């Protein structure tokens, strides 16, 4: 759907942006336009959230559509539900933009079947880092409320949120817009025919003027784009060369938490955990002998670079990898930077619902002229070393 076709409606005012979303969902369920919804709910211990699929309308009272933190990437929830096929339930999922983008990537990979899903996003101010949230839920809620007010991440937010340009309307079926609007105002905007249909059936399809909101978002976006440029410059300097890579990942213990928290890395048995990638004991000793010693477990850098090659074209920069890392390695910073490069190479943007196939699923006979150059350069480098 192009910008000019976008239609939206003003929702009845509610106390908090989240409440307006809940009212909307209640209406959709009551009118039988959806069978169930997926929303975050506080876990009983009160220090985190979990995704809950619910059709019991009374449970909506305890749901928090716009949650302060993002423990499990929403695309993983959608994948667990629809991996084996779309089924007959119409389900509205309200998730952060990066979660929906991941879901769109997963649908291209055959891991999410979105046919009966209505994917809804909202203007995302950023998400509080998981460990910070768990350590101080009350304080984090307060900080998040401020983030919502200002529409900007603060320093408790994940570093990638500061550089996220796609924090508002992207390619979801529905989008809730409120950042940059006067207090308590909330728009619901259709991003697809499916979304439009739902709004029409709810009697919410009036073509509101979206320009105030769009202007507000553009302003917020400008900040993030600026931050993105300078962050990438920094990351580039840190990552430069093998030593750079080594020092960024120096503390890595090889737990692969980053991979298992990643929504894109859906492989049941990751290549880097498989027998194929396993070194036999003799080879290990030989490798150690060549260098006088070797760090264990082996292949940690191989794992990270390999993962970059496998999935960076679909990386949505959600930051879940960093949140899951037990030794606070800025995994997402590195992956986000690399993803920016690889996606640029193919003029591809992960998470866009525009029918663009995955870059590695297609090729053009004449493309990527630079690659040959690179190969030549590499040859030259090798020969100069000889």
């Amino acid at each position, binding site marked *: 759907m192009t910008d000019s076709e976008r239609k939206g409606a003003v929702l009845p005012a509610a106390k908090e942006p989240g409440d307006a979303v809940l009212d909307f969902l209640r209406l959709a369920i009551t009118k039988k336009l959806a069978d169930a919804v997926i929303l975050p*709910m506080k*876990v*009983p211990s009160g220090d985190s959230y*979990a995704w*809950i699929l*619910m059709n019991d309308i009374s*449970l909506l009272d305890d749901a928090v559509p716009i949650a302060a933190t993002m423990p499990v990437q929403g695309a993983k929830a959608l994948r667990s539900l629809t991996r084996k096929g779309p089924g007959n339930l119409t389900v509205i999922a309200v998730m952060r933009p990066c979660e929906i983008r991941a879901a769109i990537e997963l649908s291209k990979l055959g891991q999410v079947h979105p046919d009966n899903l209505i994917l809804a996003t909202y203007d995302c101010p950023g998400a509080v880092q998981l460990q910070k949230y768990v350590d101080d839920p009350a304080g984090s809620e307060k900080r998040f409320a401020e983030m919502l007010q200002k529409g900007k991440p603060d320093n408790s937010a994940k570093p990638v949120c500061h550089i996220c340009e796609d924090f508002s309307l992207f390619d979801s079926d529905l989008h809730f817009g409120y950042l940059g609007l006067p207090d308590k105002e909330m728009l619901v905007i259709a991003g697809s025919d499916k979304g439009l249909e739902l709004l029409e059936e709810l009697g919410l399809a009036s073509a509101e003027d979206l320009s105030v909101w769009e202007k507000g978002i553009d302003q917020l976006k400008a900040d993030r784009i600026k931050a993105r440029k300078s962050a990438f410059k920094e990351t580039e300097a840190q990552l430069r060369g093998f030593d750079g890579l080594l020092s960024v990942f120096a503390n890595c213990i090889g737990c692969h938490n980053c991979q298992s928290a990643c929504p894109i890395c859906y492989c049941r048995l990751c290549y880097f955990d498989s027998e194929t990638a396993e070194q036999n004991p003799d080879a290990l000793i030989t490798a150690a002998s060549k260098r006088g010693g070797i760090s264990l477990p082996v292949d940690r850098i191989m794992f990270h670079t390999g993962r970059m090659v496998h999935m960076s074209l679909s990386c949505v920069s959600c930051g879940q990898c960093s949140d899951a890392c037990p030794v606070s390695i800025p995994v997402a910073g590195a992956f986000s930077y690399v993803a920016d490069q690889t996606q640029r190479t193919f003029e591809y943007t992960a998470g866009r619902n525009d029918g663009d196939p995955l870059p590695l699923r297609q090729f053009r006979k004449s493309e990527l002229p630079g690659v040959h150059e690179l190969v030549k350069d590499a040859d030259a480098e090798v020969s100069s070393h000889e």
Partner: protein
Amino acid sequence: MKKEFTPRITSFLCKWCSYTGADLAGTARLQYPTSIIPIQVMCSSRVDPVFLIKAFLNGSDGVLIGGCHPGDCHYETGNYHARRRFAIVRSVFESLGLESERLKLSWISASEGPKFARVANEYTEEIMKLGENPTRKSIFL
């Protein structure tokens, strides 16, 4: 008015003994409650401990394993292994304070129709006393 509580007892019954025992109870027209939901397995040792846990978390009010008496297993030693595994699951439940009474293992041979009926009745009564499994209500599992 309080709704009558009908327990659901997922029952893994060995084909060679307990399942046949249950059949016998049926053909002899011995009364046993509808709470028993029988699932035929080839041997009590086929019951992965994880089945018990899954049934429990999915809201079964009781989970029953029926196997051949020690020494009579069709595969000779399957039930001895089943017993050890059962002991482990029960111990895990106990140390976490979960109701281990909701798990039961019973030796019932192919000819013990009456024993099957008795175990089914007694266990159902026991579960009735315990009430509904709290996992039925929890949405955070």
